[in-house]
C-alpha cells in the first residue's frame, strides 16, 4: 500500500464514519427511532462524560477499560507463549498432532459461555477464571494457526536447508521461522480478536467491573446508553489492539508479502 492509497483510505474511512454518526444522530433527533432502542451519539457522549466524572457502579470508567484490557492482555500473552510452541509441535510431528488435535478441534468451536459453570467449579470466581476463559479461546486459535503455518513451509526450502548443512534448531530458526513468521502473526492477530470477544463471557464470572460486565449489567436496567458506550469502547479498544499487532508485525517481519 503506497502513501496515496493510505491517505485515500483514511479519508474514505472518515467520510463513512461521519455519515453513519450523522445518520444515527438524526434518526433519534427526528424521532425515527425510539432513543430507548438506539440512544443517539450525543446521549452516549453525555453518558461517557458522566461516567468519566462519576464512574459506573463504584469504579471510574478508566478502571473498567483498564481491567478488561489487563485481563485480555495477560490471557493473550499466555496464549502466545503456550499456543505457538504447541501449534508448531503439532505442525512438525504427525504423532503429536494425532494425539493433541482431537482436543483442540473439540474445544475450539465450543461456546465459552458453556464452560463457565465448570471453570467456576475448577478455578473459583477470582481473576484466574476470567483470564483462563479468554486464554482458552485465544490459545486454541493460535495453535491451529501455528500448525497451519508449519504445514505451509515449502518442503523444497527445507530440503535445500538440509543440503546446505542446517539441522535441528538451526533449520528451524533460519529456514522455517522466517517463512512461518508472517503467518504466525496472522494467527496471533486473529486470536486477539477471538480472545477479545470472549471478554463478555469471562466477565460474567462474578465480575463487578470491566467493559464486558458493564455492558451486560447495564442491559439488565435498560440503560441502553451505557450498553452502547460499552460496545463502542469494546470495539475501539479491540481496534487499537489490532493496529498495535499490525504495527508489530511490520516491524518484526518487514519481509512479509515480498517473497
Amino acid at each position, binding site marked *: 500500500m503506497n502513501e496515496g492509497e493510505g491517505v485515500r483510505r483514511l479519508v474514505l474511512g472518515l467520510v463513512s464514519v461521519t455519515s453513519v454518526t450523522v445518520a444515527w444522530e438524526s434518526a433519534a433527533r427526528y424521532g425515527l427511532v425510539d432513543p430507548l432502542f438506539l440512544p443517539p451519539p450525543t446521549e452516549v457522549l453525555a453518558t461517557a462524560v458522566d461516567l468519566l466524572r462519576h464512574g459506573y457502579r*463504584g469504579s471510574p470508567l478508566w478502571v473498567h477499560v483498564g481491567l478488561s484490557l489487563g485481563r485480555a492482555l495477560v490471557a493473550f500473552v499466555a496464549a502466545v507463549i503456550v499456543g505457538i510452541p504447541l501449534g508448531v509441535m503439532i505442525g512438525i510431528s504427525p504423532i503429536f498432532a494425532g494425539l493433541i488435535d482431537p482436543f483442540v478441534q473439540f474445544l475450539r468451536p465450543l461456546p465459552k*459461555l458453556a464452560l463457565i459453570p465448570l471453570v*467456576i467449579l475448577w478455578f473459583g*470466581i477470582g481473576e484466574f477464571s476470567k483470564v483462563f476463559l479468554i486464554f482458552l479461546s485465544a490459545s486454541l486459535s493460535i495453535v491451529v494457526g501455528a500448525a497451519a503455518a508449519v504445514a505451509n513451509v515449502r518442503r523444497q526450502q527445507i530440503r535445500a536447508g538440509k543440503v546446505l548443512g542446517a539441522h535441528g534448531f538451526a533449520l528451524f530458526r533460519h529456514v522455517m521461522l522466517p517463512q512461518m513468521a508472517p503467518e504466525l502473526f496472522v494467527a496471533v492477530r486473529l486470536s486477539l480478536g477471538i480472545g477479545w470477544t470472549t471478554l463478555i463471557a469471562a466477565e460474567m464470572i*462474578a465480575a*463487578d467491573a470491566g467493559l464486558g460486565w458493564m455492558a451486560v449489567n447495564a442491559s*439488565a*436496567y*435498560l440503560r441502553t446508553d451505557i450498553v452502547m458506550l460499552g460496545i463502542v469502547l469494546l470495539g475501539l479498544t479491540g481496534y487499537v489492539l489490532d493496529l498495535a499487532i499490525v504495527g508489530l508485525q511490520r516491524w518484526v517481519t518487514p519481509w512479509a508479502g515480498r517473497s
Partner: protein
Amino acid sequence: MVAPDINRRRFVTLAAGAAALVGAPEIGRAAEKPAVVRIGYLTAARAWTIGMTDGSFDAALGTKVEWVTFPAGGPALSLLAARQIDFAIFGITPIAAGLSRKLPIEILGSPEIVATSERLIVKPGIAGIKDLEGKRIAVAPSSTMSYALEAVIRINNLDSHSIKRLPLTQPDTIAAWRRGDIDATYINGPFWGELLADGGKQLLVSADLQPAGIFVWNSAVVRKDFADGYPETVVAWLQTVQAQFDRYKADPDGVSRALAKAYGAPFEAVRDTLAGLHYPSFKEQLGPGYWGNNVESGKDAPMVRALDDVAKFLADTGEIQRDGIPGSFAQTVNYDLLNKAFPA
C-alpha cells in the same frame, strides 16, 4: 430470579434485534380483541402459570395466547421494550428501572409478595447479622435479592465497604459455595434447599424486612399501548390471573404437583418455593395496605412508597439516573382497569 446467563444474553440479543425490526406499534381499536395475546413469565414455576398448562387463559381471553419465557427481569424489560410481550409478572427492581427509563408500561398490582422464598443463607461460622462484615456474599445481579441484601446492610448499619458482594447466578452461587469461595448468599428457592442441606444456616427471610418498610414483590405489568387499545382484554387477563391464584390457594399441593410436572422440577421444590410467596388478592391490593384505589390515594400507599425506595436505591448505586425516576409511581399504576376488573 435469574437463570443461566446464556439464556439471558440470547434474549437480550433477540429482543434488541426485534426492536430494530418492529417499527410501528399495532394500533388497536378499543373494545376489540387482539389477534394474539403474548404473556411473559419467569422460567421458574409460579402459581398463576397453572393457567398456562391447561389453556385457562386461552378460554378466558377468547383469543390466541402465546407464552414467552424469560430467565430474569432484565430480559423481561427488553421483551416489553421490543413489543414482544404484552403482559408479564416479575420483580420490582427491574420494573422500577424500566419505569425510570420511560419504558411505556403500566403496573397492575402486586400479586406475589416475597415472604420466605428469598433467604439469606450463611456458612455455619456466621452467628449473626453483624458477622457479615468482612465477608463475601453472592447474590444474583439485578435481582430483588440484591435489593434485599443492600437493605439488610443498611438497616443493620453494617460496614458496607467491608462486605464483598459477588454477582453470581444461582447455579454459579452453589458451585462457589461448594468450593468455599463465598461465606453467604441471598438466594431464592428452590436453590436455598441445596445450601441448607449442605450445612448452610438461614439468617433471615425477606419477610423479616417488612417491619422496616422493605417490601419485595413481583408486579404484573402491561404495555401501555396494549392497555389503551384492549382494555377489556386487560380486565379479563387480570381476572384470570386472580382465578389461578385462587386455584392455588384452594389446593396448593395439587397445583404444585401439576406445575412440577409441567416445569420438570421436583414437587417438593415447587411446593416450598410457592409457599414462600404471599398472595394478596387484587381486591386487597386496592386497599390502603397496598396500592390505594386511585392515583390520589395511591400517593402515600405503602407499595408506591416502596417502589420509590427501590428506584432511589438503584439511583444511589448508579444503575439508573435520578432525574428519570417518576414524580410518583402512583401515576404508573393503571387503577382504572384494576377497579374495573375488581369492583369494590
